[in-house]
């Protein structure tokens, strides 16, 4: 975490004075982007850096669904299961993704390539069903498109492994 402190200092500049506690969430976001999850030592570091109570960091971490205490697969597939997406076939998409990857929602493939999650409304209901691949939205998803995407990601992984 320590190597991120210069970045945190820059973030701090944008906030009004006295807003140090507000940095908890943005710092955790940044740490997770760096490591893939938030480790014990990150919490220690953040508590020391921001001077906030440890419980505050722990509470924030455990409350928000986007923050993690453990690593996940290299590609995170998150499929919306809320109403507008379900009305446009999300349930079938989720089933298909589970079968194709051999995992249940929340699970990671044995090779550590994929984690599959279901999520609530992504604010993209007009282009349902919707899936996030890491940070990016894939809208109007079909089963064929899902297969194509997973296939492509597998190929990318293999290319990455060879390098």
């Amino acid at each position: 975490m320590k190597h991120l402190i210069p970045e945190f200092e820059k973030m701090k500049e944008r906030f009004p004075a006295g807003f140090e506690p507000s940095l908890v969430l943005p710092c955790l976001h940044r740490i997770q982007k760096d490591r893939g999850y938030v480790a014990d030592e990150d919490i220690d570091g953040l508590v020391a850096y921001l001077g906030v109570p440890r419980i505050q960091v722990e509470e924030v971490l455990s409350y928000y669904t986007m923050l993690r205490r453990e690593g996940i697969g290299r590609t995170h597939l998150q499929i919306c299961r809320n109403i507008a997406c379900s009305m446009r076939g999300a349930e079938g998409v989720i089933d298909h993704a589970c079968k194709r990857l051999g995992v249940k929602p929340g699970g990671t493939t044995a090779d550590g390539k994929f984690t599959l999650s279901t999520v609530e409304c992504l604010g993209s209901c007009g282009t349902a069903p919707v899936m996030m691949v890491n940070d990016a939205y894939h809208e109007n998803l079909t089963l064929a498109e899902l297969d194509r995407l997973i296939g492509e990601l597998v190929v990318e992984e293999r290319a990455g492994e060879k390098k």
Partner: protein
Amino acid sequence: MPGRKLIMNFEVTPTSHTLEAYRARGGYQTLEKALAMEPADITKEVTASGLLGHGGAAFPVGRKWGVMKPNPGEIHYLCANADEGEPGTFKDRWILENAPHLLVESMLITSYALGVRHAFVYIRGEFDLPYRRIQGAIDEAYAAGLLGRPQANGFTLDIVVYRGAGSYVCGEASGLITSIEGRKPYPRNRPPRLTVRGLFQKPTVINNVESLANITGIIRMGAEEFRKVGTPKSPGTQLISISGHIAKPGVYEVEYGYPWAKFLDEDCGGMLHGAKMKCVVPGGISTKVLTRAEIEPLNLSHESVNPAGSGLGSGGMIAIAEGTCMVRFLQVLLRFYHHESCGQCTPCREGMGWMHKIIDRIVAGKGVPEDIERLYAISHANDGTTICGMGDAAGYATVGILNKYRDEFEYFIQNKRSKFDGRLECLA
């Protein structure tokens, strides 16, 4: 086209969101006009415009601002609510992606009116392009000296974009504030109102992105001209994001007073695969469903929709085709509310859990006839007994569906299967 446009009134191109394009459309000229006005006169103009909030509750924007009564030398904050978490709603995203400078200019004008030195945009954590667009616009505004530097009359504003991390209650105004304070986003009891004691105990105005986006137009046109759009009781327009079993889903700017059925049948291309319409969720899942017959005589304005027992809410409209199983429909909603309850209030925390269990049981074919009354009883017990509006909202949605489609629940419990085939999709 469903009436005149105030926000989606330009052609979207790959560069129409930039500062250059916004300036070419007359952008930031209204800011100059505003900075030459007395701050209190801006609030007066907004109050006179009759602008109603677009976050869900349709609260008059001017009245909220009026509570703040900025005192020189004191600290006040402004937050734009870009959490957009109400299922069915995706219209603020249109503004963030396509007209981010309209929001920035509006936040500058609002902050000047309210004596704000630091403002925030609270954006949901999943939004990636909308985040990059609004942050990009803010960066451009800094580089152009519109932010972070004193303007001609000395007024200075800084805007911070704050990203959420996947929680529905962060969209609730006090939950949003607690989130920015760096704690878990528990909503707060009121009073005190947030305009009296908000972010870090300082007076804070929180408005929805679309509400704020209207400010520039109101100051440019003047309240009188603004009121010529829409109806006397619902001035202006509303962005309606429509999804579900509709042929042409998307975001539409609708002038208040436009006939509802015409909007669905003509502007939105009617139902998917030529299906028949069963009912509509008018404005986010927390508003009560209305049947096709009920909406037939209505127009899209608060004074038309509210007496029918529902509301335009967040503009998140969902069209539902005949043959859709409303038991399964409610199951998805209750699973969502249960998942998102922050757990602070007993009626919401326990009630959502019970309702979710009951509906799961019904769908599993293990429901008992008393379950329907239990769903009613829990909904009623939540009404007005919780800290934030989520407890009530879940109850309204449930009662709305039970009242109209009780037969489907009875059928499911009796026959251990859906009256239809348990489908949520609309097949060709």
